[in-house]
């Protein structure tokens, strides 16, 4: 079905079920329980999961397949965001033109940068992309936001003002981004006993787009083009002496992944109409690199998992403060309670970066293939295969 092999189809179905049922899956704890802190099933975070999933899927098409490590992909995300908000400002809050333009603009931008940066490979390529992205960031943050020519609105971020033209806006339409009238913020809350689940229009739109992107990524991975990209990573010399021109292949991959990034940026604006320059900073580029490696570069689903994990930490762990800890451990005797909290406190709340850093290290030390390898190991352990046997199959199976 869908032109996919069984294993790929199964993967796609799993992702489909997971994304569609995310509001349930991510909210396993009753609203009033102490563990509700760990619930991630609210619109903003669910949107972030799938949007950064798209970003990572796209990045993986470049990095995972060709091995070209771009350190400037956030620039495309940022350009996409700006393009989308500009459509809101000029045309109105319908997200369709904004998202389309964000893909087109970031594609063109990627083409321009790709033509220049792909003249080099290895770390030289990485630094070239980094340089372009940092320049874009610096310009967006200050120079391009000067009062005479305000393209980005600098530090504050580009947003829609009441006096913007919005040619196709009408009073009947929501005053927020919408899909032909369906507000991206429209949320249905379902109360089920002690649980509350939220179904958000913006999330489902992004989720559907992510499924399409994921599906396309599978097709690309399995296509002759995908094979050529893996050839680029494996041995460019042999590729050239096999009569293949590696440059247009890598450029195409670069542009495609730039368009994925731009789409992600456009969606970020679509669910929240403000585009900030920090989205283009090197740390943001680094983030998608980390997501991809953390999940498992070159695998289909890994980058999405990596994106989810990092966003989860950023949004959930950062919110665990001292009073939350006291709630959790209130049942312990006072002295012990304080002791436990002293132990945990540095790793949560304002210490969430520390935990994230430790996770990076642990994953890369113990699971060189990223989270996916962890999953495979667990899967193998469950199936009870012999270790030697399993190691062999892992090395010969094509990246999944």
């Amino acid at each position, binding site marked *: 079905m869908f032109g996919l092999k069984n294993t790929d189809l199964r993967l796609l179905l799993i992702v489909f079920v997971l994304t569609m049922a995310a509001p349930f899956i991510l909210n396993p704890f009753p609203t009033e329980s102490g563990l509700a802190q760990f619930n991630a099933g609210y619109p903003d975070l669910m949107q972030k999961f799938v949007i950064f999933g798209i970003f990572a899927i796209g990045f993986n098409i470049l990095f995972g397949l060709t091995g070209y490590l771009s350190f400037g992909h956030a620039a495309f995300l940022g350009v996409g965001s700006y393009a989308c908000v500009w459509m809101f400002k000029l045309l109105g809050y319908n997200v369709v033109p904004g998202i389309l333009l964000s893909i087109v603009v970031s594609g063109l931008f990627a083409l321009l940068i790709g033509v220049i940066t792909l003249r080099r490979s290895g770390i030289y390529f990485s630094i070239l992309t980094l340089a372009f992205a940092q320049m874009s960031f610096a310009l967006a943050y200050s120079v391009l936001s000067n009062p005479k020519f305000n393209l980005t609105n600098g530090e504050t971020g580009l947003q829609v003002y009441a006096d913007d033209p919005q040619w196709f806006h009408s009073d009947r339409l929501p005053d927020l981004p919408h899909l032909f009238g369906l507000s991206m913020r429209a949320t249905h809350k379902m109360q089920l006993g002690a649980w509350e689940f939220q179904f958000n229009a913006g999330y489902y739109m992004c989720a559907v787009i992510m499924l399409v992107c994921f599906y396309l990524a599978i097709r690309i991975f399995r296509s002759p083009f995908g094979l050529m990209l893996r050839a680029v990573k494996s041995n460019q010399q042999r590729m050239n002496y096999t009569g293949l021109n590696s440059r247009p292949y890598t450029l195409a991959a670069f542009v495609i992944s730039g368009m994925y990034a731009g789409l992600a940026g456009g969606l970020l604006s679509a669910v929240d109409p403000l585009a900030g320059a920090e989205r283009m900073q*090197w740390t943001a580029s680094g983030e998608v690199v980390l997501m991809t490696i953390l999940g498992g570069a070159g695998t289909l689903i890994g980058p999405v998992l990596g994106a989810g994990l990092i966003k989860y930490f950023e949004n959930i762990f950062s919110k665990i403060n001292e009073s939350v800890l006291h709630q959790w451990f209130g049942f312990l005797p006072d002295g012990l309670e304080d002791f436990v909290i002293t132990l945990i406190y540095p790793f949560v709340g304002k210490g969430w970066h520390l935990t994230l*850093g430790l996770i990076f290290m642990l994953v890369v030390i113990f699971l060189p293939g990223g989270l996916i390898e962890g999953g495979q190991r667990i899967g193998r352990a469950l199936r009870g295969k012999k270790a030697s046997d399993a190691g062999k199959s892992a090395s010969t199976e094509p990246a999944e």
Partner: protein
Amino acid sequence: MDAIILQILNGLDKGSAYALIALGLTLIFGTLGVVNFAHGALFMIGAFCSVTLSKLLNLSFETVDPTQKDFLGNPLKVKTPYVQEWFGPEVGAAIIDWSVPLAILFAIPIMLAVGYVMERGLIKHFYKRPHADQILVTFGLAIVLQEIVKFYFGANPIQTPAPDALSGVATIGGSFGLNISYPVWRLVYIAFSGLLIFGAFAFLQFTTFGMVVRAGMADRETVQLLGIDIDRRFTIMFGIAAAIAGLAGVMYGPINAPNYHMGMDFLVLSFVVVVVGGMGSLPGAVLAGFLLGILEAFASTTWATTTIPGINQIIIYLVAIIVLLTRPRGLMGKKGVMED
């Protein structure tokens, strides 16, 4: 003329920091083949060695002075550092005053140890792993180190002033008809960096240890075939690279107050410096460091920013792009390094 020389000095000053960090990065890369994203963190740890020393020297006991009141209206507790108690007020004050130069002695063993532990405990296991893995693990380590420092020292910058004797302004070039005033400590920093760079090169050039290391950088297998334990030497080299970054950090403290994220601030730039210099080339790293420092200084002048708005923000990246497009392996890079 004065203005130009001033900006050259400023450039040398910035360049010193870039060059020292880039030198260490290149040493680690050249010897171990490891992309060390935690190198900025080593620079930061160096700076915090001097913060720690100055805190230690300022360890005080409290006496209550009933004549003064604190902000809550309670009697004021007056703090007297132990060093002043032990060595007398004047000597004690002088020791505290000279805490930054003293921190050099304090930092060398610490940085060597940090480098050694890092290499043996972590980096060692990543020699054969892809560069992406190295980046992830060292980046994770950088975050961890940075957060630990933040946990103990807070996020705000902490002043580590230069000794009074070295914190004034020097007037130089009078005999050439120039009138340039420049902070003494910044001149000290330039001189110190020059010495350190010179020392590192001399060490590699003229000692047997250095010669073995250089040979190992060029061809690891052959050196190993000769029965030399090159790994152990590379570990020591890692320690030395860490110490260079650390000393750069110690001495940088009085120029800009150390904060926990200063390493990250320098990290990206120093990678650009290394690559512009050419991966694996030590002279390239130093040259590119100074070059980019000077260019950055000149791009910040009003003349430059009015000619091209925003040039000061992008100059380094712009130069990096131009250099890499015209010289594929940077200024002095060798063929085949990090191109796979």
